[in-house]
């Protein structure tokens, strides 16, 4: 079981490394969106500090959305997805492997960049730490929940726009607790509760979402 998940992760990472342009593009999108906000709302440090958690988290959602359509589309186009669906192992496990690989490629860079971008918004040290931690805990949930939408819109007309329509409402709890954790730190309330709930969402997102995703993939392959 573990060896299968490892094999899927290994394959997807190798493929991602062969076309790094995609990873770089999504990461730069994140940086640019975040950098646009001070230009739009003005450079007052107080205001930026207040906006920072929300801006960074919304930008993280959008950057994730950008990479989601490719999650299954390439495998669908070249016939690999059929092979995965016909493997004698549960498809959900394979999906789990792909979700983990997607997070490593699309989620982890956001986590690494967040402290740097947080400095642009004049966040204090502890707030920066909590921001990074909240993204580290929360982004796996984005990959997991997003996989459901990616599978449902596979090979569908206007899939990319439809995908955001389906997935963004489901991201709301992650956004609330993720940005809330940083907010709570800034206002001195402590982020413990937010982070715990975010962790629960991430566990749910990563371990339950592969089942509906696998069902949706089988529907898409019919």
């Amino acid at each position: 079981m573990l060896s299968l998940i490892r094999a899927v992760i290994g394959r997807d990472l190798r493929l991602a490394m062969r076309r790094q342009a995609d990873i770089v593009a999504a990461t730069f999108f994140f940086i640019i969106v975040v950098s646009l906000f001070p230009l739009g709302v003005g450079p007052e440090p107080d205001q930026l500090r207040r906006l920072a958690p929300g801006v960074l988290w919304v930008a993280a959602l959008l950057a994730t959305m950008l990479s989601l359509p490719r999650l299954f589309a390439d495998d669908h186009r070249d016939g690999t997805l059929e092979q995965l669906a016909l493997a004698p192992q549960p498809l959900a496990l394979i999906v789990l492997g792909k979700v983990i690989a997607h997070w490593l490629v699309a989620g982890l860079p956001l986590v690494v960049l967040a402290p740097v971008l947080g400095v642009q918004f004049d966040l204090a040290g502890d707030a920066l730490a909590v921001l990074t931690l909240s993204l580290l805990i929360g982004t796996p949930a984005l990959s997991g929940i997003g996989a459901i939408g990616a599978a449902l819109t596979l090979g569908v007309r206007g899939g990319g726009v439809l995908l955001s329509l389906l997935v963004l409402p489901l991201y709301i709890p992650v956004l609330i607790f993720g940005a809330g954790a940083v907010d709570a730190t800034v206002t001195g309330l402590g982020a413990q509760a937010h982070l715990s709930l975010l962790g629960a969402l991430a566990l749910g997102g990563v371990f339950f979402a592969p089942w509906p995703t696998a069902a949706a993939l089988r529907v898409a392959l019919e």
Partner: protein
Amino acid sequence: MRNKLINWFRYASPQTFYPLAGRMIPWFWGLAAIFGVAGLFIGFLLAPTDAQQGEGYRIIFLHVPASWMSMFIYLVMAFWAATGLAFNTRLSGMMASALAPTGALFAFLSLWTGALWGKPMWGTWWVWDARLTSELILLFLYIGFIALQAAIDDPRRADKAGAILALVGVVNIPIIYFSVQWWNTLHQGASVSLTRAPSMAAMMLWGMLLCALACWMYSIAVALMRVRVIMLERERHTDWVRALLRGKA
């Protein structure tokens, strides 16, 4: 056991359900009209003027039933979705598709009437209250469901994909509601608290319940009408639809 199942599934076949639905529709329209007239009569003529809110409060006779129905219809949709996935019956998917527009309509009505109520009461069209926000997200979920089904050409695939989405949505609704409420308590600023409901006169409650029943009957009638159209469209090449259309022509 098997015989019993087949008996039930008889009604799940569009061919038997089509005429049955046709016979039921006028009854539900009738009930909707009776309940609606009674509810509005009580609501506008018998219910007392609210001491704090004046006459403006009377919009709740539409607002509250619309909110209830928008949530209830999503549950019913998810139920049909689950049945469709479990038993692979054609009718279930059709019912879910037939219900979605009505659910979206009620969610929209609930938001709209809420705004109309909010303006005179609190001086603003919109507050980021937990209930308003959740209702807005529910509307998004309905629109996502309708858009997904519209984007998929093959009706069977559309049914199944929609069913999976509806089930994922119904699992998520409590999580979303809870998180929005949590968010709301943290951000509770100068806005108005909606939870302090003034004790309601019995007459108001009756009016509201009757209006809710009217909306319920209306939803069933409209969903049945829509499901009949969907059946004709999807099965237009089958013998029974051809015979039916020939009979009418």
